[in-house]
């Protein structure tokens, strides 16, 4: 352990505080904004002293937005529900498809396995806009545009490669002979997969699932193009606050706060898995 003087400790503390302030400030400001009206938000110079109001949250939750130009229907809560449903369902489908595939890529060496795995990863390279136009046309032709099913399918572009590649590394880290020991004791490969490989790779699967959830939650462009108002997630729904009578900053801020709560809660809950899962070598041979 290196020796640290009091001065070093103090400097380090100051540096860490600066970094935290820098990165946390936008979030802090958003939280402040969510308790203000547009008038107090837009005054110059800005001040952190104001009369807090919960009107923004009330508007979001009741679905009625009162503006100077009149009242407006907003379906923020249904957007939130859409986000939750789309992200959960996408991750569930991604896990069901991706985990067995990751096992196959990790354990079985077959002709072309590397190519297929790489192709799946390459979905992440392509900018979404590149595929969106043809995808939109196809989806309209086969009737998948503006359906949950279609959206969940497209979300696989985001979640599947992520799950596949993280979990695959996990399966590769499990010594094959642990599975062989189980197989030779009279178990099929499927029950070996279920009883040995899956539990040992669980931290990795949890981490991959969580990351995939966050990525799916934060997706904007696919839902913007492929979903109509009643199926839009919060990321797209927030656009509704850009109204004819101006941008409703207060509601935008409250919407942001509400929409980061689920992922924040999930991340805090699964923090342990996330750290464990993303640092390799958690399985000791």
């Amino acid at each position, binding site marked *: 352990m290196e020796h640290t003087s009091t001065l070093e400790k103090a400097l380090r503390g100051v540096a860490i505080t600066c970094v935290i302030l820098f990165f946390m400030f936008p979030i802090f400001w958003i939280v402040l904004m969510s308790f203000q009206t547009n008038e107090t938000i837009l005054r110059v110079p800005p001040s952190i002293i104001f009369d807090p109001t919960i009107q923004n949250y009330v508007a979001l939750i009741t679905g009625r937005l009162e503006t100077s130009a009149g009242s407006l229907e907003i379906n923020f809560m249904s957007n939130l529900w859409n986000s939750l449903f789309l992200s959960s369902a996408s991750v569930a489908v991604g896990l069901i498809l991706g985990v067995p595939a990751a096992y196959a890529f990790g354990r079985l060496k077959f002709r072309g396995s590397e190519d297929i795995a790489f192709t799946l990863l390459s979905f992440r390279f392509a900018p979404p806009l590149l595929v969106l136009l043809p995808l939109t046309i196809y989806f309209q032709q086969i009737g998948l545009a503006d359906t949950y099913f279609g959206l969940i399918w497209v979300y696989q572009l985001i979640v599947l490669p992520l799950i596949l590649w993280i979990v695959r590394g996990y399966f590769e880290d499990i*010594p*094959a*002979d*642990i599975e*062989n*020991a*189980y*197989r*030779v*004791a*009279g*178990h*099929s*490969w499927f029950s070996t997969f279920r009883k*040995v490989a899956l*539990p*040992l790779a669980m931290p990795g699967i949890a981490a991959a699932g969580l990351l995939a959830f966050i990525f799916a939650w934060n997706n904007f462009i696919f839902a913007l193009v492929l979903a109509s108002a009643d199926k839009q997630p919060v990321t797209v729904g927030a656009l509704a606050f850009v109204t004819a009578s101006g941008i409703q900053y207060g509601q935008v801020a409250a919407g942001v706060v509400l929409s980061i709560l689920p992922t924040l809660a999930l991340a805090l809950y699964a923090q342990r898995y996330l750290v464990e899962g993303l640092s390799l070598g958690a*399985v*000791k*041979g």
Partner: protein
Amino acid sequence: MTESVLRLENIDKFYGPVGLGVHAVRDVSMEVEEGDIIALLGSSGCGKTSTLRMIAGFEETSRGKIHLAGREVQKLPPVRRHVAMAFEGYSLYPTVNVRDNIAFALKAARLPAAEVAAKVQEVAEMLEITDILDRSPNSLSGGQQQRASLARALIRDADLYLLDEPMGQLEPQLRTLLRGRIKFFIKERGMTAILVTHDQTEANALADKIAVMEEGVLQQYATPAEIKDRPANLFTGTFVGEPPMNVFPVTAAASGGRLSIALADGVVLDYAESDFAAEVRDRILTRGDVMIGVRPYAVHRSETGPTATIQANQWLGDQSHIAASFAGQTVVLVEHHRADVAIGEPISIRVDAHDLHVFDAETGMAISHGPELA
């Protein structure tokens, strides 16, 4: 009448495409009788573990057939082969303790709890691991994990027990003790076992028959005594035996009822023609240039004979290992008493005809062992 539990028929293993990939096991055929312990002996990369894993079903058999307990199994998955295996890398289930690791298969087979507990206790006592039964595999030393892995294999009911370097991590004292116990355990229950090892002492002590492998080829498959007395080729001769066999390239010639074997540097070993059977003599003389092998304990100091100069003399507590420069190389002698010779001292060497192993210089195949044909 014992029947064969395992029969390997011309099996090959290629890592990569058949015919192109690394040819790890080459045309191996052997039979294992019920109740026998077989040792697959060889250096690293000789194909012994690949052979074992083909029998277990973890590696595909590239060519040939494997018959196990009357069934052709080379296409079957491990689950259907009914074998038990102890792994070199232990491969204990990391999530359960040692007791549950050992009892795993018995519990899965729904044996009564009392019976499982009794069996676990018995095998744990045999392997001296009763004190670690409740510990997690990750907290154990290599030797402890190895014994737990061995226990997990031996406790099961199987047609064949495959043990991959089962004692490699154990301390020498424990190894000697457990060798005896494991052999007794296996023999008492009439189990059939194949163990892979690179330790010839282990092979000699445990096995009824030893299969010596090198470069994927089964060099010899015989009892330990036969391998020592009648090595099939130069490799087996030099690989098995400690210290290894002395080998010299020689030229043989006959004249006046004598057979003289000329080593390098003008050293000649002289024998009566009658020391060898007529066919042996003929074979040696037609070849002319051959290799001779002599076990260290068969090289004697004597009054007369070619001279050697002592290079080293080590007393190991129960035997002396003497190295001497002889015929342009080093010859090693073993004497079962403290040898009283000093470095630099000249000695005379005698090798009796019945201790001579003669090998073909080109193929390395044995021509004769003592007076008889190989």
